[in-house]
């Protein structure tokens, strides 16, 4: 009897913990969701910030933010950059992972060490000098600038692909070699299809990380015609700090694409990040 009671008590305190945590995580999001549907008067004079908006269909703030920030162009630019650099980085990372898991060769440790170094080095500061170099070679203020920079360094993708390829026994390669298949053929028609889950994970994580980055667009792509979604909201936000309802609409629109991806694919995302971080 007492055991059941103590278990009930435990459950009650657990439910309390969960509720508290959910409030902690969700409350800022709910707050800006509320304010994004409030008119100026409603926002200024409503008795409590915690009140939900009176009219959930009021879209005035969303209209304003799309006009002010040119967010549609931002989405389009982000999409173009994402498609090309994800594809390029996937090809490069899978080739590196293939070579590193399939072959023993001199310099292998050096390659691994390079990626490790890149992982721990504070990249934001290397940007300062990369910036000087990029402007000199004329790769500046264009979509290819972003595409190339996002392709350049990718440690997490390599780890995830390494992990996936390590699980494929070398005996598979050997039997294909008995049939006379070339290494390129083994890579393309056997190894790549076998690591499809890893590839999917890499694509999802890469899409999210490029979409969320604001520093490379800020530094290398200052022009209005090449702004990404994050840069568009970043530019507009400075003037809107006093107009919280309009700002909120922008923040919601900026986080919406990754939130949708997350809601649909959260299992892949969580397991991918866990594998990548623990190995890295």
């Amino acid at each position: 009897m007492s055991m059941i009671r103590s278990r009930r008590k435990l459950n009650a305190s657990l439910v309390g913990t969960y509720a508290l945590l959910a409030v902690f995580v969700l409350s800022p999001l709910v707050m800006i969701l509320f304010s994004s549907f409030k008119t100026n008067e409603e926002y200024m004079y409503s008795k409590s910030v915690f009140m939900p908006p009176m009219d959930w269909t009021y879209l005035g703030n969303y209209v304003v933010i799309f006009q002010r920030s040119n967010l549609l162009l931002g989405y389009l630019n982000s999409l173009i950059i994402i498609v090309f650099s994800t594809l390029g980085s996937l090809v490069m990372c899978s080739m590196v992972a293939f070579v590193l898991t399939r072959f023993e060769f001199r310099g292998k440790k050096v390659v691994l060490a390079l990626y490790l170094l890149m992982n721990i080095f504070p990249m934001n500061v290397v940007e300062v000098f990369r910036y000087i170099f990029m402007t000199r070679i004329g790769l500046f203020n264009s979509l290819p600038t972003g595409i190339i920079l996002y392709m350049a360094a990718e440690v997490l993708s390599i780890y995830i692909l390494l992990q996936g390829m390590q699980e494929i026994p070398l005996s598979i390669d050997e039997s294909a070699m008995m049939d006379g298949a070339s290494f390129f053929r083994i890579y393309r028609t056997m190894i790549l299809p076998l690591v499809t889950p890893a590839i999917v994970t890499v694509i999802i994580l890469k899409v999210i990380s490029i979409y969320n980055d604001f520093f490379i667009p800020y530094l290398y792509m200052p022009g209005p015609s090449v702004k990404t979604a994050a840069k568009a909201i970043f530019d507009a936000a400075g003037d809107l700090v006093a107009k919280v309802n309009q700002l909120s609409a922008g923040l919601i629109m900026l986080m919406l694409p990754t939130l949708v991806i997350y809601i649909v694919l959260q299992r892949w995302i969580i397991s991918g990040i866990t594998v990548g971080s623990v190995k890295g």
Partner: protein
Amino acid sequence: MNLSYREQKRLVIATFLLVPLVFIGVFFLYPCCMLFALSFSQWDGLSPISYVGLSNYREIFASPRLFGVIFHNMAYLVSGLLQLVAGILLAVIINREFRGRNFFRAILFMPYIINSVSVVYMFSYMFLPNGPYNHLIMALGLSKTPLKFLSKDLVNISLSFISFWQYLGFYTVIFLAGLQTISSELYEAASIDGASFWQQFRKITLPHLRPLVEINLFLVIAGSLKAFDGVFILTKGGPNEASHTLMTKSIDLAFKYNDYGKSASLSIITAFIIIAIIMLQRALMRERA
């Protein structure tokens, strides 16, 4: 084309690694080397570069406005350590069967994938004098006047709170993955022997999580030294330099003051601290193994 596997292997290694290595060389190693060289020079971005030896380093260590900003990074370290403790406890709590468990885990992890621009500006609203947090604090009677979250005294705590919110779920999920590798038989055997929850936590859970604690500890330390987003997006180092971190100070030195030499030295110092910590951690791990 009939190449032997030996020749083929060489060809594949060379061609597969060529482009990625060129990318690393051009976009990472070359800027790193320039960074290192410039840290011993004075350069404003226009006039010729002049070699000044260690004077940048000396000046940085002597100036509280330069190396002193590392104390602002300490706020992020403290919040990161709290994150680890909270992450372990949460993981233990979540690591049991209950309805809605995956849903709860998904909510907890969600902040990690939200754009930092959105996150930081969202909190700038939460922190307003008449914003939600102040409403809450005053309703609960914790303070009679609204707190100034972004004032000189509180700004680093407030900004590190943003990272706490953003990354708590990340650490929890990593610990959770570790917990799921512990066999439940261990706990069953311990319960039969009469071990309390706390004893089980200390004797079974913590030892198993130890490698993950180490990895996460390193991520927290490195992360706190690299703290950047909130400062760069929201406060720009203010008010009156009170929120500058190593990274934002270094960026400012380069782009605001055109002092590329000092900017380079400051980031080399940061990088060396991080590398020293990673070496120490690896040495410790190897010693035990």
